[in-house]
């Protein structure tokens, strides 16, 4: 284990890459949760769906970018079906029932993945545009991972603008702050919820497709990333963009540096962090609602 600058730079980039992936997943989950008061444990499954669809799309079209384009759309469509059939009805059902229903969805997706794509791990090739490595700051780093970081930051910027500068964003913020009041003001909150939900699903699908070239696409990849995502949402604070990015960075860095500096403790470190936040600030670091 080297202690020179290149080691730290590489690990920082690794941490950023993981953070961006977590961010793409957690931002959807936290806003859906903050706005709809719905906890969707199947969010991880949607991410996995994005990866699987991406694998098929890129294999079919012979290009990574097919996956990049198709996966978010496909997962958003599935999201529409889920919303209409299930989510809308369960919105006021209380946390336990929501957990149970989405848990059932996890089970259903698990077997659907196996039926559709088999049991062996799949892979996807990086796009030619970003393949290979880039040299900078005295290190050589996979270009594709830099792309992931860039993509995450772009999405963060886009969502920030969306939330702060558009009417949709204002409605979302109002809805997160006080949904009943927003509805009383005549805002079609239902439609906004629907849009937000689909957007969240699309982001999850995008995350899956984007992660596919760097991770193994397996039937349990959704459940594997679900817990870190939930930890991000809880620590970051519900319903806020700031919470999502802060939490993602925190977990991404703790997990990455923990794994290389103290592997035995790394797995436990994230949960220790959760414990600390739960004791000191149960609402999380940056909750949307004071």
């Amino acid at each position, binding site marked *: 284990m080297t202690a020179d600058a290149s080691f730290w730079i590489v690990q920082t980039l690794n941490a950023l890459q993981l953070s961006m992936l977590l961010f793409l997943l957690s931002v959807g989950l936290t806003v859906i949760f903050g706005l709809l008061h719905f906890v969707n444990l199947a969010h991880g499954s949607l991410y996995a769906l994005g990866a699987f669809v991406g694998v098929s799309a890129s294999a079919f079209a012979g290009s990574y970018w097919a996956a990049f384009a198709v996966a978010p759309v496909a997962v958003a469509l599935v999201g529409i079906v889920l919303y209409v059939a299930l989510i809308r009805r369960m919105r006021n*059902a209380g946390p336990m029932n929501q*957990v*149970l229903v989405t848990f*059932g969805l996890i*089970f259903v997706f*698990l077997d659907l993945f196996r039926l559709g794509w088999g049991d062996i791990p799949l892979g996807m090739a990086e796009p030619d545009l970003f393949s290979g490595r880039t040299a900078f700051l005295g290190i050589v780093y996979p270009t594709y991972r830099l792309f992931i970081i860039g993509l995450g930051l772009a999405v963060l910027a886009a969502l920030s603008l969306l939330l702060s500068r558009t009417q949709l964003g204002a409605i979302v913020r109002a809805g997160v702050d006080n949904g009943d009041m927003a509805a009383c003001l005549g805002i079609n909150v239902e439609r906004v919820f629907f849009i937000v939900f689909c957007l969240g699903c699309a982001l999850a699908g995008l995350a899956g497709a984007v992660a596919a070239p760097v991770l193994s696409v397996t039937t349990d990849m959704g459940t594997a990333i679900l817990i870190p995502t939930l930890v991000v949402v*809880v620590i970051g604070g519900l319903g806020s963009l700031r919470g999502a990015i802060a939490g993602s960075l925190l977990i991404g860095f703790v997990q990455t540096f923990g794994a290389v500096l103290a*592997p035995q403790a790394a797995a436990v470190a994230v949960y220790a962090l959760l414990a600390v936040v*739960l004791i000191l600030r149960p609402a999380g670091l940056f909750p949307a609602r004071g």
Partner: protein
Amino acid sequence: MFHQTPLKTGAVLLLAAAAVVYAFTTGFFGLELLTEVAILAIVAIALDLVAGYGGMVSLCHGALYGVGAYAFASATVLLGWGGGAGVAMAVAAGGGFAWMIGAVSARTHGIFFIMATLAFGQMAYAYFFDSPLFGGSDGMPGIARLDLSGVGLDLKNSLSYALFCTVLALLAYALAATLLRSGFGRTLVGIHANEPRMRALGLSVWRHKAAAFGTSGALAGLAGALAAQHTMYVSPGLLHWTVSGELLIMVILGGLGTLVGAVLGAGVLVFVKHEVSRFTDHWHLVVGLVLIATVLSGGRGIFGQIEFWWSPRGATRRAATEGSPDHA
């Protein structure tokens, strides 16, 4: 509030009798299933205690059960202690870990509490998965069953072990029922009904919740010791959150907050899983759909429904506190 009604007593005795009859009339595989049902019933009872009556829905009971299993395995295989000490370790480990989770999460409610338990359970899973001391992802083989030859029981015999576990499940039910009728149990139900008022009446709520969760964990740990001896092998898979999810499904299917439902649900899920697996490799799909359907239909669970048919007004009154962990 919990009442050990004649219906409950009858149902429990009936289930116990059915188990015994089944044990004597089935083959090896049936005994394996029965043992599995009895062991999981103990964990499900522990879960219903805190979730159904205390309103603390947990997704870490699989981990508590697994921690107990590993504690037993470590004590007997790694440290060479006797079976009795191993069981004590399992109970202490499950109870201690659960107490900590309960204490830390006492200020959280609703979905946050569920997520906190989920994360802590996964912490334990990750720990055992990565830990070479406990065999990592390969787990620990070579676990021996308790030596009860002193009382004339050969636990290596499948029939004996199945009956042994069934008796323990019955005792677990009796223990839970006693606990729920005690001041401790009633106060737990009180916390579920109105936590702030309970605090205003002078109760240290966090301590009580932690103690309740700890007690539940101790029971789950005991079941873990039994599980370790059953398969004579432990692996991290025991702690995976999907195990906790299945336990919650058992309690819901059977009837949350009925105590008997936990036992019934364990039996139903294990047998359904087994039957479905004979026809298809995709039992997850079936269970998932059944679960979604059950929740959507707003069901009370099998035993909850039975109680309702038996005494509609009584059941509705109890359901008002017991079936609704929806505090945000």
